[in-house]
């Protein structure tokens, strides 16, 4: 049987009548037509994964773990698809540098798309179908938000495209061996048959290029509309990661400020993770007294574990439940519920780090170990536990964690920096981060249960002793956060003869509205700022509506925006006090509370 020659194709200018009559194609059309859609797709995916979603994927890596060691990876053995997820975790390690990791993601996604088109023998308009898997993959990745990595299988993100590419790479040669269709090059521009009219060529070019861009654009759109906080939080976390390697003291502090700026620039969002990382930066900069309430603290529900408000997750963190969120349920009870599978907590996202930055090193170990128990080891947990071990002078366990981390690809910077501190207390005490953490460490030994825990500060408001003035600031900030004004006033008296930071001064002014006597204890302080008086007058109308219904929640957001400029430089505590974190207002924890509940 004679060989059938494929239809001749040509990239040269066709000699079609219709085209002859049409105007000469513009340079743009020529450029578009000669642009391989696969190249467009590769670049778009790379840009998305490297820059737009880079911070998220960088943090996903921190929440993941892979090391070439059977013992430490035993937790993955026997899991359904375990081998694939281990491969995915290994590939995710490249996101140590998102631009590098993104190259692999883009390659896998593009290859899968390309080979799918070949295997399905798609032609013409049908070619758009080959982009569907990539579209689904990226859309779901963006939709997952925190669920991509937080208390989730982190191997999925790279494991799925790796598997798809592998499957395609196996099928494609099989098809090739039964088919005469040549294997197309990845970067091959579109080839057109001579009889295809120019208009159709142009239309198809546009559609295919759009299809190539669609997965990335869809992912961006989903993130920007449905999961806005994910990038904000992870960008803050990336700053935190970067400062671990910062040698320069100024740059080090700048990184914390960058974290604060990210939160301040996104005050339209208000979730606990944002508040938590903002608080960490504020504490580490020693600005608890002046900047703690610069962001909106009303807490929209973050999307985690596929749930939103009203879900089981809300047991821990819902801002919309009828129950006040302060001390309604002991943390122990919440954990027991989680252990028995009732739900999980968005608090777990940041609690270990918050404990640590609030100086509660042993509590950070507690929560870090729990995270490791429930989700297996992660770089983030192991790094935190390493730092805690160093602070506690537990050299051998610090060595253990560093040895494990040393087996993880691309972790030599961290391991190098902290290995040098093992059994070297003078180096630990000289480290700026450790120095700040030490300032707020508890000075007496007591049980966690006796601590009131707004977890992002984690300081016991009942304590009367502290290692430094920073410890007192933490304590005062907790009291202000819980709006426990008598407790605050009682403690702030110890600062009688010192200039008060802005937030504390505002809090005293608020308290002074009904208790003018207290201001006499601070002779320098008067409610003289006209902005305060105007503000108090202004907000009266927004507390309740005509029917007497409490409207503070509805008005909180726009009021924050309204006063954002006016109160700039003066502070936002009054807004927080009247309109923020309303559940804290419903039921204030007493200072002698021995339960382990918290306002978070």
């Amino acid at each position, binding site marked *: 049987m004679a060989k059938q020659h494929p239809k001749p194709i040509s990239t040269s200018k066709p000699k079609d009548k219709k085209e002859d009559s049409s105007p000469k194609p513009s340079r743009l059309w020529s450029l578009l037509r000669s642009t391989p859609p696969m190249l467009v797709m590769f670049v778009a995916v790379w840009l998305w994964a490297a820059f737009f979603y880079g911070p998220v994927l960088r943090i996903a890596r921190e929440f993941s773990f892979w090391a070439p060691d059977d013992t430490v990876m035993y*937790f993955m053995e026997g899991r359904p698809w375990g081998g694939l997820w281990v491969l995915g975790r290994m590939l995710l390690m490249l996101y140590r540098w998102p631009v590098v990791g993104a190259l692999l993601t883009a390659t896998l996604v593009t290859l899968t798309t390309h080979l799918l088109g070949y295997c399905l023998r798609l032609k013409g308009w049908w070619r758009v179908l080959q982009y569907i898997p990539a579209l689904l993959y990226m859309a779901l990745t963006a939709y997952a938000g925190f669920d991509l990595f937080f208390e989730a299988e982190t191997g999925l993100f790279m494991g799925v495209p790796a598997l798809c590419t592998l499957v395609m790479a196996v099928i494609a040669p099989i098809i090739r061996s039964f088919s005469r269709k040549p294997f197309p090059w990845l970067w091959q521009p579109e080839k057109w048959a001579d009889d295809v009219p120019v208009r159709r060529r142009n239309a198809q070019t546009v559609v295919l290029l759009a299809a190539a861009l669609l997965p990335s654009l869809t992912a961006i759109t989903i993130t920007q509309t449905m999961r806005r906080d994910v990038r904000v939080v992870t960008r803050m976390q990336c700053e935190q990661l970067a400062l671990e390697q910062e040698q320069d003291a100024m740059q080090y502090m700048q990184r914390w400020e960058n974290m604060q700026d990210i939160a301040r620039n996104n005050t339209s969002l208000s979730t606990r993770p944002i508040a938590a990382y903002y608080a960490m930066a504020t504490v580490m900069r020693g600005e608890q007294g002046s900047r703690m309430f610069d962001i909106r603290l009303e807490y929209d529900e973050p999307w985690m574990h596929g749930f939103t408000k009203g879900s089981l997750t809300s047991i821990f963190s819902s801002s919309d439940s009828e129950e006040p969120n302060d001390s309604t349920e002991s943390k122990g009870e919440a954990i027991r519920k989680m252990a028995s599978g009732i739900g999980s907590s968005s608090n777990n996202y940041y609690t270990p780090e918050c404990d640590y930055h609030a100086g509660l090193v042993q509590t950070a170990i507690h929560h870090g170990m729990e995270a*490791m128990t429930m989700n297996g*080891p992660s770089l983030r947990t192991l790094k935190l536990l390493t730092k805690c071990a160093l602070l506690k002078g537990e050299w051998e366990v610090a060595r253990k964690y560093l040895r494990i981390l040393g087996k993880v690809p691309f972790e030599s910077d961290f391991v190098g920096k902290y290995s040098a501190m093992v059994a070297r207390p003078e180096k630990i005490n000289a480290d700026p981060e450790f120095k700040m953490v030490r300032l707020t*460490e508890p000075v*007496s030994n*007591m049980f966690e249960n006796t601590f009131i825990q707004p977890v992002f500060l984690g300081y016991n408001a009942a304590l009367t002793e502290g290692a430094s003035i920073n410890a007192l600031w933490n304590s005062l900030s907790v009291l202000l956060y819980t709006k426990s004004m008598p407790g605050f006033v009682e403690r702030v008296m110890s600062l009688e003869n010192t200039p008060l930071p802005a937030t504390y001064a505002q809090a005293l002014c608020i308290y002074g509205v009904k208790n003018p006597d207290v201001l006499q204890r601070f002779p320098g302080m008067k409610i003289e700022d006209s902005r305060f008086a105007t503000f108090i007058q202004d907000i009266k109308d927004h507390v309740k509506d005509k029917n007497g219904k409490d409207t503070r929640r509805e008005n909180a957001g726009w009021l924050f925006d309204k006063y954002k400029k006016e109160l700039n430089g003066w502070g936002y505590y009054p807004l927080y006090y009247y309109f923020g974190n309303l559940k804290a207002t419903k039921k204030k924890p007493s200072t002698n509370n021995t339960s382990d509940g918290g306002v978070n």
Partner: protein
Amino acid sequence: MRTTNKIHFTKTSLWAWALATVLLTACGPKKYDVPAQSTPTDSEAVIYPDHTNTVVPPNIAPLNFMLKDSLATAVVVRLRGEKGGEIVAGGEKDLKVEMDTTQWRTLLADNRGTTIQATVYAKHKEGWVSYNTYTIDVAEEEIDNYLSYRLIEPGYELYRQLGIYQRNLTNWEEKPIYENNRTYEDENNHCINCHNYRNHSTQDMLFHVRSNHGGTMIIRDGKVKKVQIKGDSILTAGVYPSWHPTLPLVAFSTNKTGQAFYMNGRDKIEVMDEASDLLLYDVEQEKVQLVLNADTLLETFPAWNPTGDYLYYCVAREPFPEQKWPKDKQAEKIMTYHNQMFYDIRRMPFDIKTRTFGPSEMVVDMASQKQSASFPRISPDGRYLLWAQAEFGQFHIWHKSSDLWVKNLETDSIYSLTEANSPEVESYHTWSSNGRWIVFSSRRLDGNYTRVFIAYFDKNGRAHKAFCLPQRDPEQNIMLLKSYNVPELTKDAVHTTPAQLKEAIYKD
């Protein structure tokens, strides 16, 4: 044609054999020689885990180790037996020494009851150096072949994947006895704990399942049964068990347990009993009876003596019983006075015929010394009582002050097992069936993760320096992020399969 083919085939075979030989040689263990020249350092080799100058059973797996020497690029060890035999082993990567099991067994067998001299050589930039020779004494008495333990993340409130495993001490074989669900499943998550055997035999064993599918799994003669040890006047369920050596009885404690977390200081967790009593469970009749349940006393950790005519246990007085706290605040009271809880060891005679207990008597008075005992265990010859002692409380696995102590029940002398102890925690101890080995959990390697240690207990009642459970890869002790919990020695392997146990556990 046929001949040519044959010749061709032969040539191919030859090539294949040659290739296989090369590959096998390349993959086989590298041979190490004692350095021809080395400079003595006059210092001790720092090896991990440390097994220098210990006494080992003649049937133990090789004591592989890592050399801790930041200047070294290679390590060689030479082991020479007093009665002959030699092993030379070495390593380069991570300075790990992994010895050949056959050679090791031969060396130990040849030198049973004598000493092995070990010299470690390290390759430095300037050449080989040798460290001071250390000794490994090979005991006459073997250790039971099997060790079972639970692997679980250290402490805290939560658990996820965990299992009870069984290790063959003569080699590297480790098999799961039972592992809980690998992946998180709301309806199937469960914890397992307190595995226990009768008379070092796996013929009769038990362990508890908590949370979903909860109950006590009793395995007798290969038959698995799940029972609920509960009753109206029983606090919770059966907790710490002890099989009667001859009768189908198990003594249990029943404990209302809670835990709290320290904010500071050297200890991290405090596990406290708000209340606890003792029970006796008849395995055949499936009946449970209360043995001790005094209001102001907390009785726990029952342990039969080898003849089964005494039940030992720990007991503490509720602190300040004159202070009456409301019942719902009892846990708070215990938490407040947790460091005032001192557990003594007492015993009650048990009449095997009538199955009745006699009056209790003090065995070790701890409270008067402001000390506290837990986990009493009687040696198989009935001569020694072994326990963990710390400053207060009963869950000593989280008390850094916890050490192993013994009482010679014949002479009444009480002493600490100083050579086996460490500045870190020692607890969860058990005897070998011949009474010559003590196995226990210790946090001495890193202060946080418990590892199993084995110490020789000689005829004079003296414990020797303990060595860590050998691992094929000595780095396993570092890489493993779980603790070894409740090590128990048995003469034989558990025959029930994980699948059988799973079936019985999931059958609610």
